[in-house]
């Protein structure tokens, strides 16, 4: 663990965003994770995404469960709201918070253990309800914090560090999310910020449930030669599934990816996602095709990354329940108390 504080000195020519902040204003405390942990790169990408979107930290809530991954909200956005809940329970806390205050941007950080084992039920229902949350699963195929047991996302053929076989098959959280009706589903790799940052930006701006499965190597317990979630393995077996740019309003951002046919998808809230198709079959709005590709790639030993699926027209939980359009903490006595006459009328309906 690093004991010293990160020096306050920053590069004098560091750029600032629309609200006058540098990316360093979006940092948290210095990470206590193992050196080289993929989770730290995801932290850096979240910082970049929030910085690039010029989000004010006090309008963000970061929530997590338990695990190395779930510790990371402490390492970004020092000035955001935060809740480190119990194991697997981040979605419940996020649901409560979101219903109470719909104006915040919700970032949920979880691990593969936290999501695919103890929290699987919570995960499913948050999707089913279309909670307006960006759910990030920092997926390393292991329980890092408890020293390297197999998690439910670890591939069957992926042995543990000591060479022991994994008796069970893997749950694919992204496939599951599409099947359960999530509106925005992506997969990425902690080691590719060029892909991850635009995905995070789009997910954060998506109104509804967005899920990003980020393969994030555990250098200490799952980065060995038999692992299918190591840096080397992912770099060798990754297949890119479309490339994307998040475009607020009309401005164009260039990514460094090769040219392809570009499709622009208009989101509910007016923002655009520009999407470069890599193959003729590739249509991120068609869940059947997407699921097919994902399954085929998987049996070919490929790890599909990119924006997998998006439904631009999904409604979120607040729409479904027709809740208050304002955060609860902003409702005044007048909003909450209809007055004697009104109350009498309501009561009469039930007499």
């Amino acid at each position: 663990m690093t004991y010293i504080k990160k020096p306050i000195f920053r590069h004098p020519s560091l750029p600032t965003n629309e609200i006058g902040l540098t990316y360093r204003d979006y940092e948290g405390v210095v990470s206590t994770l193992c050196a080289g942990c993929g989770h730290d790169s995801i932290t850096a990408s979240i910082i970049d995404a929030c910085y690039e979107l010029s989000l004010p930290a006090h309008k963000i809530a970061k929530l997590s469960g338990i695990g190395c991954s779930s510790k990371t909200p402490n390492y970004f956005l020092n000035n955001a709201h935060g809740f480190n809940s119990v194991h697997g329970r981040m979605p419940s806390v996020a649901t409560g918070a979101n219903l109470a205050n719909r104006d915040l941007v919700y970032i949920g950080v979880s691990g593969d253990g936290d999501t695919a084992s103890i929290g699987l039920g919570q995960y499913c229902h948050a999707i089913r309800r279309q909670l307006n949350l960006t759910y990030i699963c920092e997926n390393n195929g292991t329980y890092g914090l408890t020293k390297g047991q197999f998690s439910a996302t670890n591939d069957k053929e992926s042995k543990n560090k000591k060479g022991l076989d994994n008796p069970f098959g893997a749950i694919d959280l992204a496939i599951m999310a599409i099947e359960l009706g999530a509106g925005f589903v992506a997969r990425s790799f902690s080691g590719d910020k060029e892909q991850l940052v635009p995905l995070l930006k789009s997910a954060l701006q998506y109104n509804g449930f967005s899920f990003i499965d980020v393969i994030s190597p555990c250098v200490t317990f799952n980065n060995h030669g038999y692992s299918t979630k190591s840096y080397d393995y992912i770099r060798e077996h990754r297949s890119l599934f479309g490339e994307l740019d998040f475009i607020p309003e009309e401005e164009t951002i260039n990514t460094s990816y090769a040219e392809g046919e570009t499709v622009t998808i208009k989101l509910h809230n007016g923002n655009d996602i520009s999407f470069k198709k890599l193959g003729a079959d590739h249509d991120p709005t068609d869940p059947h095709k997407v699921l097919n590709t994902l399954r085929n790639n998987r049996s070919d030993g490929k790890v599909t990354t990119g924006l997998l699926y998006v439904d631009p027209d999904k409604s979120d939980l607040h729409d479904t329940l027709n809740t208050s359009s304002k955060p609860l903490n902003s409702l005044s006595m007048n909003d909450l108390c209809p007055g004697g006459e009104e109350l009498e009328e309501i009561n009469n309906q039930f007499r």
Partner: protein
Amino acid sequence: MMKPTDTKNPNYYHKVVDCQWACPAHTPVPEYIRLIAQRKYTEAYMINWESNVFPGVLGRTCDRPCEPACRRVRVEEEPVAICRLKRAAADNKSDVSSLLPEIPSKKNGKKIALIGGGPASLTVARDLMPLGYDCTVYEKDPKAGGLMRTNIPSFRLPVGVIDEEVDRILDFGVVKKFNEEVKSLKSIIQQDYDAIFIGTGAPKGKDLDIPGREEASSNIHVGIDWLTSVAFKHVDKIGKKVVVIGGGNTAMDCCRTSLRLGGKDVKVTVRSPKADMKASDWEIEEAELEGIPIFDNHSPKEFVHENGKLKGVLFEKMEAKYKDGKRKLIPTGETIFFECDDVLLAIGQENAFPWIERDIGIEFNQWNQPEVNKVTFQSTLPRVFFGGDAAWGPENIIWAVAHGHQAAISIDHFCNNKDLEDRPSPLTNLVSQKMGIHEWSYPNDISNSDRFAVPHAEKELSLTDLNMEVELGYDEKLAFEEAQRCLNCDIQTVFSESLCIECDACVDICPIDCINFTQNDTEENLRKKLTVPALNLSQDILVSDNLKTGRVMVKDEDMCLHCGLCAERCPTGAWDMQKFTYIEAHADKSSIFEYVE
């Protein structure tokens, strides 16, 4: 495509140590600063002594080219007080006599004449005496030290400090021919010296030939001669109203000395705008703190006198016009008269060699300057070497020392029939500082403090006493605090591509965004495409060999804080913090490694 950086070239890492690179004598600055923080003042002093011979003097007076170069200036505003920390080492050290080189009682049979007893000659003696040379110093003044003694006023540099550091060298057994002005080089050459070093400085102060100069000459003084007279106590007072003409450090010393010798209304005048004054910022600041006004854009026209009695100086106001980056001073026609009792001229100095015969084989160029080899310091007469201000005109003490070290190497080669162009290589070393997983044997938790000011003596007292030192120096606590500001630029970030797994941990932690993983390209393009573009071309970029993904690691050395976080966050040890020691080669073998932690 850039090739992987050759870090085996000693200049690569040396350049990263900005202060040491900028120091003419290449003093290992961060090493002595760390020793000061550990209260190892004697060791800190000896590292300095080996490099620059006069740490006590330089810790008070050095022109400090290291400070504008200091990395701290790039990441915040003020450099580390490198110079004043040197003084703290000198002030707090214990007896060093047992640490000095041994002087062989059996001489090597070679005799060297050193003409002039300033820092350049003394450095040559310091380097050659331990090798058994027999050195004789000819000095026209009663004591050695050169301008350090005769021109730098004692309120900046107490005589005791000069005596200590000059005598240390003389006590090596140097033969002293003091009060002996050399009037003919031929007469020296005719003696049996194996080599002759000319370190006579730039002793001639420039004069100002305007009307009234001759008539009023009894109250118009050439600054450096006047300061010498003050140093040797031949002069102990000056008129109430004094005008100092000139904008360099000599002018600053003249005006401040005048205040202490009875001047009440002392002014400094310069021809150019104030921003272009030659004097160091800190010298100007000290003069202004003592209440001396500086009138810029004032060009002297006439010394006004009544029957030879000086009444004042008439100036014409100038205006600076800039065209194509070039400055031109245009007379405005407006004149100003400053009444005064005395004038001090501080408009420059020159070297001059009326005592060197022009038919003995020493060639002089069209400006009447000797032809001296920039590397070997040899003149066109092989036995004769030049150094210090005598070589190419006035510089400063640290350059005189640097010249002296190089000339000593040449003289040693010359006396041993070795090729003079074959210069000895520096000693270098690179050692890991890793002590534990996140522990380093250097203080990486750097201080955010602003530069600490050096305490000053009370102005009322120091202005009445020529010998009272104005600066009191850092006490131990302040020295410690200031030392913590040093970024340890000699602790290098050493990268081993074979260990790198490209996990980005270093990129993510680096507080100053100097690390990048990217596709290789030309230097120009690489510099442009870094996370924060590397636009400071005076600083190198470190480029690795190809990594597994085909990318390269590119680090911009410009802003690196040497905080070691990249190495702490690297899971494989691909980054390591390693101390680079660079010791300039001297004729006398260095023992700096004995003091290095």
